[in-house]
Protein backbone atom coordinates (compact mmCIF):
# COMPACT_ATOMS: atom_id res chain seq x y z
CA UNK A 1 0.00 0.00 0.00
CA UNK A 2 2.74 2.45 0.95
CA UNK A 3 4.78 1.31 -2.01
CA UNK A 4 1.82 1.94 -4.37
CA UNK A 5 1.28 5.39 -2.89
CA UNK A 6 5.00 6.07 -3.11
CA UNK A 7 5.21 5.14 -6.78
CA UNK A 8 2.08 7.19 -7.52
CA UNK A 9 3.52 10.22 -5.70
CA UNK A 10 6.74 9.84 -7.65
CA UNK A 11 4.75 9.86 -10.88
CA UNK A 12 2.70 12.89 -9.85
CA UNK A 13 5.86 14.74 -8.89
CA UNK A 14 7.56 13.73 -12.13
CA UNK A 15 4.60 15.01 -14.12
CA UNK A 16 4.58 18.25 -12.17
CA UNK A 17 8.29 18.71 -12.68
CA UNK A 18 8.01 18.27 -16.44
CA UNK A 19 4.87 20.35 -16.95
CA UNK A 20 5.15 23.30 -14.60
CA UNK A 21 6.68 26.53 -15.74
CA UNK A 22 7.60 28.17 -12.47
CA UNK A 23 10.54 27.53 -10.18
CA UNK A 24 8.38 27.24 -7.07
CA UNK A 25 6.26 24.52 -8.67
CA UNK A 26 9.32 22.65 -9.83
CA UNK A 27 10.79 22.67 -6.34
CA UNK A 28 7.48 21.46 -4.91
CA UNK A 29 7.28 18.74 -7.56
CA UNK A 30 10.77 17.56 -6.69
CA UNK A 31 9.69 17.37 -3.05
CA UNK A 32 6.62 15.32 -3.98
CA UNK A 33 8.89 12.93 -5.88
CA UNK A 34 11.17 12.71 -2.87
CA UNK A 35 8.26 11.87 -0.58
CA UNK A 36 7.32 9.11 -3.01
CA UNK A 37 10.82 7.66 -2.77
CA UNK A 38 10.71 7.81 1.04
CA UNK A 39 7.36 6.02 0.98
CA UNK A 40 8.74 3.19 -1.15
CA UNK A 41 11.81 2.89 1.08
CA UNK A 42 9.69 2.69 4.24
CA UNK A 43 7.49 0.09 2.56
CA UNK A 44 10.52 -2.07 1.79
CA UNK A 45 11.50 -1.93 5.44
CA UNK A 46 8.23 -3.54 6.50
CA UNK A 47 8.53 -7.18 7.43
CA UNK A 48 5.27 -8.92 8.29
CA UNK A 49 7.16 -11.61 10.18
CA UNK A 50 8.91 -9.45 12.73
CA UNK A 51 10.59 -6.15 13.51
CA UNK A 52 10.99 -3.84 10.54
CA UNK A 53 14.42 -3.18 9.08
CA UNK A 54 15.92 -0.11 10.80
CA UNK A 55 18.41 0.69 8.04
CA UNK A 56 15.86 2.11 5.54
CA UNK A 57 14.30 4.07 8.42
CA UNK A 58 17.65 5.66 9.16
CA UNK A 59 18.17 6.32 5.45
CA UNK A 60 14.80 8.05 5.21
CA UNK A 61 15.32 10.29 8.23
CA UNK A 62 18.67 11.32 6.78
CA UNK A 63 16.99 11.86 3.43
CA UNK A 64 14.26 14.04 4.90
CA UNK A 65 16.77 16.34 6.57
CA UNK A 66 18.87 16.65 3.43
CA UNK A 67 15.70 17.28 1.38
CA UNK A 68 14.64 20.09 3.72
CA UNK A 69 18.09 21.69 3.53
CA UNK A 70 18.23 21.36 -0.25
CA UNK A 71 14.71 22.76 -0.61
CA UNK A 72 15.55 25.80 1.49
CA UNK A 73 18.64 26.40 -0.60
CA UNK A 74 16.68 25.89 -3.84
CA UNK A 75 14.03 28.39 -2.71
CA UNK A 76 16.67 31.01 -1.99
CA UNK A 77 18.28 30.30 -5.36
CA UNK A 78 14.91 30.66 -7.09
CA UNK A 79 14.29 33.94 -5.32
CA UNK A 80 17.71 35.22 -6.31
CA UNK A 81 17.06 34.18 -9.91
CA UNK A 82 13.68 35.94 -9.88
CA UNK A 83 15.36 39.03 -8.48
CA UNK A 84 17.86 39.05 -11.33
CA UNK A 85 15.07 38.74 -13.87
CA UNK A 86 13.27 41.67 -12.28
CA UNK A 87 16.41 43.74 -12.51
CA UNK A 88 16.78 43.10 -16.25
Amino acid at each position, binding site marked *: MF*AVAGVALFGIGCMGLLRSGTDLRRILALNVMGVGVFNVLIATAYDPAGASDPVPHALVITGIV*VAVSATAFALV*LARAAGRDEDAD
Partner: protein
Amino acid sequence: MQTERKDPGGKAGGQVFLGLMLGLAALALVALLGAAVFMSEPEIGGLAGDVMANIETTGLANPVTAVLLDFRGYDTFLELVVMFVAVLGVWSLGRPLPPIVPAPTPVLGLAVRLIAPISVVFAGYLLWIGATEAGGAFQAGAVLAGAGVLAFCAGMMPDFEIRQPLLHRVLLALGMTAFLAIGVMVMAAEPGQAARTFLDYPDALGKWLILAIETAAMIAIALTLLALFQGARPQRRTF
Protein backbone atom coordinates in the same frame (compact mmCIF):
# COMPACT_ATOMS: atom_id res chain seq x y z
CA MET B 1 8.55 37.56 -9.69
CA GLN B 2 7.69 34.17 -11.15
CA THR B 3 7.06 34.34 -14.86
CA GLU B 4 5.01 31.76 -16.74
CA ARG B 5 6.63 30.56 -19.91
CA LYS B 6 4.67 32.23 -22.68
CA ASP B 7 3.66 30.18 -25.66
CA PRO B 8 4.89 32.36 -28.53
CA GLY B 9 2.27 31.40 -31.11
CA GLY B 10 -0.52 30.78 -28.61
CA LYS B 11 -0.79 27.20 -29.85
CA ALA B 12 -3.17 25.83 -27.26
CA GLY B 13 -3.57 22.58 -29.16
CA GLY B 14 0.16 21.96 -29.12
CA GLN B 15 0.23 22.57 -25.36
CA VAL B 16 -2.55 20.05 -24.77
CA PHE B 17 -0.78 17.51 -26.97
CA LEU B 18 2.49 18.07 -25.13
CA GLY B 19 0.73 17.69 -21.80
CA LEU B 20 -0.90 14.48 -22.97
CA MET B 21 2.42 13.07 -24.12
CA LEU B 22 4.08 14.01 -20.85
CA GLY B 23 1.22 12.44 -18.94
CA LEU B 24 1.56 9.22 -20.91
CA ALA B 25 5.32 9.22 -20.38
CA ALA B 26 4.87 9.76 -16.65
CA LEU B 27 2.28 6.97 -16.52
CA ALA B 28 4.63 4.61 -18.35
CA LEU B 29 7.42 5.51 -15.93
CA VAL B 30 5.11 4.88 -12.97
CA ALA B 31 4.08 1.51 -14.40
CA LEU B 32 7.72 0.54 -14.92
CA LEU B 33 8.70 1.63 -11.43
CA GLY B 34 5.70 -0.06 -9.87
CA ALA B 35 6.57 -3.29 -11.66
CA ALA B 36 10.19 -2.95 -10.52
CA VAL B 37 9.11 -2.40 -6.90
CA PHE B 38 6.75 -5.36 -6.85
CA MET B 39 8.72 -7.79 -8.98
CA SER B 40 11.89 -7.41 -6.95
CA GLU B 41 12.59 -10.33 -4.68
CA PRO B 42 12.02 -9.30 -1.09
CA GLU B 43 15.27 -9.76 0.76
CA ILE B 44 14.59 -11.92 3.74
CA GLY B 45 14.79 -9.65 6.75
CA GLY B 46 17.18 -7.24 5.05
CA LEU B 47 19.76 -5.94 7.50
CA ALA B 48 17.48 -6.13 10.53
CA GLY B 49 19.13 -9.32 11.75
CA ASP B 50 22.64 -7.88 11.58
CA VAL B 51 21.53 -4.74 13.39
CA MET B 52 19.78 -6.62 16.18
CA ALA B 53 22.75 -8.99 16.56
CA ASN B 54 25.15 -6.10 17.17
CA ILE B 55 22.92 -3.66 19.01
CA GLU B 56 24.31 -4.79 22.38
CA THR B 57 27.62 -3.14 21.51
CA THR B 58 26.03 0.30 21.17
CA GLY B 59 24.40 0.53 24.59
CA LEU B 60 21.18 1.60 22.84
CA ALA B 61 17.85 -0.17 22.50
CA ASN B 62 16.42 1.74 19.53
CA PRO B 63 17.73 0.12 16.34
CA VAL B 64 17.16 3.25 14.24
CA THR B 65 19.26 5.37 16.59
CA ALA B 66 21.90 2.64 16.66
CA VAL B 67 22.12 2.70 12.87
CA LEU B 68 22.12 6.50 12.69
CA LEU B 69 24.65 7.29 15.38
CA ASP B 70 26.79 4.17 15.58
CA PHE B 71 26.80 1.81 12.61
CA ARG B 72 26.37 4.58 10.06
CA GLY B 73 27.62 7.46 12.17
CA TYR B 74 29.72 8.71 9.30
CA ASP B 75 26.59 9.36 7.21
CA THR B 76 24.93 11.27 9.99
CA PHE B 77 28.06 13.33 10.55
CA LEU B 78 28.15 14.29 6.88
CA GLU B 79 24.43 15.04 7.02
CA LEU B 80 25.08 17.65 9.69
CA VAL B 81 27.78 19.07 7.43
CA VAL B 82 25.22 19.25 4.59
CA MET B 83 22.85 21.23 6.82
CA PHE B 84 25.64 23.62 7.78
CA VAL B 85 26.62 24.11 4.14
CA ALA B 86 22.95 24.78 3.28
CA VAL B 87 22.93 27.62 5.82
CA LEU B 88 26.15 29.00 4.32
CA GLY B 89 24.55 28.89 0.89
CA VAL B 90 21.35 30.56 2.03
CA TRP B 91 23.28 33.25 3.87
CA SER B 92 25.51 34.04 0.94
CA LEU B 93 22.64 34.24 -1.57
CA GLY B 94 19.74 35.64 0.38
CA ARG B 95 18.71 39.23 0.48
CA PRO B 96 19.10 40.70 3.97
CA LEU B 97 15.96 40.25 6.03
CA PRO B 98 13.68 43.20 6.47
CA PRO B 99 13.45 44.28 10.09
CA ILE B 100 11.14 42.03 12.04
CA VAL B 101 7.92 43.68 13.06
CA PRO B 102 6.38 42.16 16.19
CA ALA B 103 3.09 40.46 15.39
CA PRO B 104 0.11 42.70 15.98
CA THR B 105 -2.17 39.88 17.12
CA PRO B 106 -2.18 38.86 20.76
CA VAL B 107 -3.23 35.33 19.74
CA LEU B 108 0.13 34.49 18.20
CA GLY B 109 1.97 35.83 21.24
CA LEU B 110 -0.18 33.77 23.55
CA ALA B 111 0.37 30.69 21.39
CA VAL B 112 4.13 31.17 21.56
CA ARG B 113 4.05 31.62 25.33
CA LEU B 114 2.01 28.42 25.66
CA ILE B 115 3.72 26.26 23.08
CA ALA B 116 7.38 27.23 23.38
CA PRO B 117 7.96 25.91 26.94
CA ILE B 118 6.09 22.69 26.14
CA SER B 119 8.20 22.29 23.00
CA VAL B 120 11.43 22.64 24.96
CA VAL B 121 10.35 19.99 27.46
CA PHE B 122 9.10 17.72 24.69
CA ALA B 123 12.35 18.12 22.75
CA GLY B 124 14.30 17.08 25.83
CA TYR B 125 12.05 14.06 26.23
CA LEU B 126 12.44 13.08 22.57
CA LEU B 127 16.21 13.41 22.84
CA TRP B 128 16.39 11.17 25.89
CA ILE B 129 13.88 8.58 24.69
CA GLY B 130 15.75 8.28 21.39
CA ALA B 131 18.06 5.73 23.02
CA THR B 132 15.25 3.24 23.52
CA GLU B 133 12.17 4.29 21.54
CA ALA B 134 11.30 6.38 18.51
CA GLY B 135 12.93 9.76 18.93
CA GLY B 136 16.34 11.33 18.72
CA ALA B 137 18.23 14.45 17.80
CA PHE B 138 16.46 15.11 14.51
CA GLN B 139 12.97 14.82 15.94
CA ALA B 140 13.89 16.90 18.98
CA GLY B 141 15.65 19.49 16.83
CA ALA B 142 12.63 19.73 14.54
CA VAL B 143 10.29 20.31 17.51
CA LEU B 144 12.59 23.04 18.86
CA ALA B 145 12.86 24.60 15.43
CA GLY B 146 9.07 24.60 15.16
CA ALA B 147 8.82 26.57 18.38
CA GLY B 148 11.56 28.86 17.11
CA VAL B 149 9.76 29.49 13.81
CA LEU B 150 6.53 30.27 15.65
CA ALA B 151 8.34 32.70 17.95
CA PHE B 152 10.11 34.22 14.94
CA CYS B 153 6.78 34.82 13.18
CA ALA B 154 5.43 36.41 16.34
CA GLY B 155 8.46 38.69 16.45
CA MET B 156 9.40 37.21 19.82
CA MET B 157 12.52 35.33 18.79
CA PRO B 158 15.65 36.98 20.12
CA ASP B 159 17.97 37.39 17.17
CA PHE B 160 21.07 35.48 18.14
CA GLU B 161 22.89 36.30 14.91
CA ILE B 162 22.67 40.00 15.68
CA ARG B 163 23.14 39.90 19.44
CA GLN B 164 25.72 37.14 19.71
CA PRO B 165 27.03 36.36 16.23
CA LEU B 166 30.03 34.36 17.42
CA LEU B 167 28.00 32.24 19.85
CA HIS B 168 25.30 31.72 17.24
CA ARG B 169 27.78 30.48 14.66
CA VAL B 170 29.51 28.21 17.15
CA LEU B 171 26.13 26.69 18.02
CA LEU B 172 25.18 26.33 14.33
CA ALA B 173 28.35 24.33 13.76
CA LEU B 174 28.08 22.51 17.09
CA GLY B 175 26.49 19.35 15.67
CA MET B 176 29.27 18.58 13.25
CA THR B 177 32.10 19.80 15.46
CA ALA B 178 30.92 17.69 18.41
CA PHE B 179 30.59 14.69 16.11
CA LEU B 180 34.07 15.31 14.72
CA ALA B 181 35.65 15.92 18.13
CA ILE B 182 34.17 12.81 19.74
CA GLY B 183 34.85 10.75 16.63
CA VAL B 184 38.50 11.74 16.71
CA MET B 185 38.80 11.42 20.48
CA VAL B 186 37.74 7.76 20.45
CA MET B 187 40.60 7.09 18.06
CA ALA B 188 43.08 7.63 20.87
CA ALA B 189 44.22 4.22 22.02
CA GLU B 190 43.51 3.22 25.59
CA PRO B 191 46.52 1.66 27.33
CA GLY B 192 46.96 -1.92 26.23
CA GLN B 193 44.42 -1.71 23.44
CA ALA B 194 44.62 -1.24 19.72
CA ALA B 195 43.66 2.17 18.37
CA ARG B 196 40.07 2.52 17.21
CA THR B 197 38.89 3.92 13.92
CA PHE B 198 36.95 7.16 13.48
CA LEU B 199 33.61 7.10 15.36
CA ASP B 200 34.16 3.60 16.77
CA TYR B 201 32.93 4.22 20.31
CA PRO B 202 34.16 2.13 23.23
CA ASP B 203 31.27 -0.10 24.26
CA ALA B 204 31.11 1.07 27.86
CA LEU B 205 30.93 4.75 27.00
CA GLY B 206 28.99 4.43 23.76
CA LYS B 207 25.61 5.48 25.07
CA TRP B 208 26.95 8.60 26.78
CA LEU B 209 29.06 9.68 23.85
CA ILE B 210 26.06 9.24 21.56
CA LEU B 211 23.87 11.23 23.94
CA ALA B 212 26.46 14.03 23.98
CA ILE B 213 26.57 14.07 20.18
CA GLU B 214 22.78 14.02 19.96
CA THR B 215 22.43 16.93 22.37
CA ALA B 216 24.89 18.99 20.36
CA ALA B 217 23.21 17.92 17.13
CA MET B 218 19.76 18.85 18.45
CA ILE B 219 20.84 22.42 19.22
CA ALA B 220 22.56 22.76 15.86
CA ILE B 221 19.62 21.24 13.96
CA ALA B 222 17.09 23.53 15.64
CA LEU B 223 19.13 26.66 14.90
CA THR B 224 19.91 25.47 11.37
CA LEU B 225 16.27 24.84 10.51
CA LEU B 226 15.32 28.24 11.91
CA ALA B 227 18.08 29.90 9.88
CA LEU B 228 16.91 28.07 6.75
CA PHE B 229 13.34 29.20 7.44
CA GLN B 230 14.47 32.80 7.76
CA GLY B 231 16.01 32.42 4.32
CA ALA B 232 18.71 35.04 4.75
CA ARG B 233 21.31 36.22 7.17
CA PRO B 234 19.75 38.55 9.71
CA GLN B 235 21.42 41.92 9.67
CA ARG B 236 21.58 44.74 12.07
CA ARG B 237 18.68 47.05 11.69
CA THR B 238 19.61 50.30 9.98
CA PHE B 239 17.38 53.23 10.70
